[in-house]
């Protein structure tokens, strides 16, 4: 099975990602204290999405996984988009 094991990710990489995550958390909190109307929620979701991709691709080693894992993520996100989209088609146009 040796061909399927990953190269260890250096400690340095993980620590840098952690620092980036803390900075992004600081940005989320700082932006949330300024009134921007509906933009506030979109910025919060945008920063949260960036943070999630860092966690998924680096901490969870998705970067090193085969295509199958990445397609799986894409399928899950598509199901999620359908779930959210169809719910809102219903709720917003009642």
């Amino acid at each position: 099975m040796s061909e399927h094991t990953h190269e260890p990710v250096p400690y340095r990489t993980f620590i840098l990602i952690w620092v980036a995550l803390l900075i992004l958390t600081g940005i989320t909190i700082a932006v949330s204290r300024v009134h921007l109307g509906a933009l506030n929620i979109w910025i919060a979701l945008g920063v949260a999405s960036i943070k999630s991709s860092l966690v998924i691709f680096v901490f969870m080693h998705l970067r090193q996984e085969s295509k199958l894992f990445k397609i799986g993520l894409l399928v899950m996100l598509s199901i999620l988009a359908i779930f959210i989209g169809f719910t809102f088609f219903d709720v917003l146009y009642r």
Partner: protein
Amino acid sequence: MSIEHRDDTGARFGMWLFLYTEVILFSGLFILYAMALSKFPQQFAEASHKLNIYFGSINTIVLLTSSLTIALAVTAIQRGRIRQTLILCGVTVALALLFLVNKYFEWSEEIGHGIYPGSEHLAEMGPGVTNFFNLYYFTAGLHGLHVFIGATLISIVAVLTAKGKVTSDRYTLLENSALYWHLVDLVWIFLFPLYYLIL
């Protein structure tokens, strides 16, 4: 030597599939949140102000750091550094407990103010605020349960590592527990701004 069947990639993919279902589970709650927010924007902002932003921020830092330590533990086991792996697992579990202790104080304070599902005080504040807190308790509670399960898994893996059952050659259990732990972190990354930081 007996022949054993072993498929580490398959085991990892199975874990990922399970995590996808977890995302769908939590996304149901986030969709409920989004619909309630579009119905009661003013009340949601008002209710969000009642949450303690310090508890939320500290718990965010705690969870992000615990995600780092468990990611480092995977690298440590891959390099065969058993002692480091055990220390990093220990730190992760300690951070998980710290998160739950914070949550305990946070919820005690809120419940002390008469804010809990079904309370009269909450009913007086109207359907918007009630909606917010019901969702908050359910989502954060379900997340807290995941923190507890994750910490238990990591403790078990640490014991197995100490016993020599998880090694640099065979560490799928640690890897999959780490994946679960990162999911707990991912859910919090969305939960924190949506519940604590609404203006």
